């Protein structure tokens, strides 16, 4: 930390060379790894003019991909919130056999490659999979349809909310909830009036991270969706498809929408971080 007052006249002159070297290195790395590629996406997307850009964005398949991705995000968010709060509450407030195990299971999706999650679903719900005959008999379609995409996205995004909320609940302890209990509040009142306001920013932060991931998820979804154009193609899959079709402008145009969503999420996240500190 820099002192508020100027250094005294007799203080030794600090050697700032190492400092500047590190700052320069960090700036250079950020530029070439993050900033330049990001700008380049917009550059390429707009390289043939706004008209072509708009035409590509409004292409039916791309529009459908944007729609599908939004639907997946909207469905997964409340489920994620519910799972995250329940898990964090359970682990922070109760001791029971298997508590450590539950904590590990919640974090499991972080350490498993999304593509493995996709393959697991394929093996379980696919036509030749374990539950395939049962699902076929009941005429339930999970794979290559919306349910499969939603489920696999949930698998990948489920740890975010609990991971944000749990440390906060553990740090705050349960005294406030006990106080509310002695004051006559019911379980639901305690949750709504005491617990929820205390964790709201962590909850929102976790939700933002989970949504960002849900929107951008590629690996797991690509396995289970079947990538049917205009039907089960989410935005990231659509971008890859356009790219493979050598429609660079189309791919980059679609990518700009995803990037804009990501940037918006980043802004929201930064604002929330400001509130929580």
């Amino acid at each position, binding site marked *: 930390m820099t002192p508020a007052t100027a250094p005294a006249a007799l203080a030794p002159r600090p050697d700032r060379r190492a400092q500047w070297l590190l700052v320069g290195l960090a700036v250079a790395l950020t530029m070439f790894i993050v900033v330049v590629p990001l700008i380049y996406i917009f550059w390429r997307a707009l390289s043939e003019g706004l008209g072509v850009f708009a035409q590509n964005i409004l292409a039916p398949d791309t529009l459908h991909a944007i729609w599908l991705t939004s639907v997946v995000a909207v469905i997964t968010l409340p489920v994620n919130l519910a799972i995250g709060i329940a898990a964090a509450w359970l682990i922070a407030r109760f001791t029971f056999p298997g508590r450590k195990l539950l904590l590990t299971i919640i974090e499991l999706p972080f350490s498993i490659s999304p593509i493995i999650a996709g393959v697991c679903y394929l093996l379980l719900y696919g036509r030749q999979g374990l539950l395939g005959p049962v699902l076929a008999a009941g005429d339930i379609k999970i794979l290559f349809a919306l349910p499969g995409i939603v489920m696999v996205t949930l698998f990948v995004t489920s740890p975010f909310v609990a991971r944000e909320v749990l440390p906060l609940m553990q740090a705050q302890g349960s*005294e*406030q909830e*006990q*106080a*509310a*209990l*002695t*004051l*006559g*509040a*019911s379980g639901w*009142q305690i949750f709504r*009036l*005491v617990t929820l*306001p*205390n964790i709201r920013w962590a909850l929102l932060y976790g939700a933002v991270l989970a949504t960002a991931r849900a929107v951008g998820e590629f690996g797991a979804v690509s396995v289970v969706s079947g990538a049917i154009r205009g039907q089960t193609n989410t935005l990231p899959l659509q971008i890859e498809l356009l790219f493979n079709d050598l429609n660079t402008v189309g791919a980059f145009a679609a990518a700009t929408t995803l990037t804009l969503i990501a940037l918006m999420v980043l802004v929201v996240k930064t604002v929330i971080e400001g509130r929580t500190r």
Partner: protein
Amino acid sequence: MSLVISHLARRFGATQVLRGIDLTVDQGELIALLGPSGSGKTTLLRIIAGLDWPDAGGLSFDGADWLAKSAAERRIGFVFQHYALFPHMTVRDNIAFGLSVLPRSDRPAKAQIASTVDGLLSFLQIEGLADRYPAELSGGQRQRVALGRAMAINPRVLLLDEPFGALDAQVRRDLRRWLRGVHDSAGTTSIFVTHDQEEAFELADRVVVMNGGVIEQTGHPDEIYDHPATSFVARFLGLTVEVPVTMRAGRAQAAGIDLSALPRRAMADGPATLFLRPADILPVPDPQAPFRVTEIASTGALLRVVAQDDAGCRIEAEVPRREGRDLRKGQPVALRPAAGQIFPGGPQTAAVPIQTPMTLKEARP
């Protein structure tokens, strides 16, 4: 209208925290649960509150079995050591909480809740803080808000866990007097937990001294101070000097110590241990005496004098500085205690903290 606790026992894993607590608290009493950390006093308070349940024993209030009731049904006021105020609510909303969560049929009208809160705010002398948030208050102010929040539901019993533990010495003393006033004018039965004997003695009508999950002694502060019932209570209350003595015909005898000021005791002849407060011991210069002054240190108002005999018996005394003017290092002195407590048994048995309730009962005079 009294709270009756009978044979209460509680175990946490392998630790027996409460080993048979019996206590009756009368309406309007202010009780202090005094003891070192780990004595079980907070566990007892939490069981009374309904935040914890015992493994055995009974708890009833006014004839009703409280162990069958939830914390909310008992209608107690609990003040937490770290206040546990709701940080996202103003002082006003914190105090109104217990009233605003009542079922719609029992809930007072908004205006009535507001007037109750206003009444409490002025009663607790924090009118100016109504619209502040807990983060904007000092420790003492938070304590008052926590008390107001607990009192808003008109509790049957007010329970306070180390109410002044987190405050500095000056605020502590002020709040102590203030709390006594609040208790007297509200008339609620109150129980508070503390490890500070000064706090317990100044504030409480009755002090309950706890150690190792049992009640060592219950009584009026003066009674406990003058007549500690067990060697634990004696040590805990500052009778830190332990001298081996011999009982003969009801009088204690020890070489070089003039025990004529102590009353006769109905105690069998034999070895015993005398417990003394350093401030009750006066060293008197005496060329024949076996004790020699080995250390003198001034703490301002007092002199700390250490005297030792050839057998290695080391006794610490506190003397007002004016009275100790004539004392010199190396000087032979006789010791003249003004008051003390005698327990049967030699120093070896007395020095080991007594573990089981059985022996404690035997140790009572």
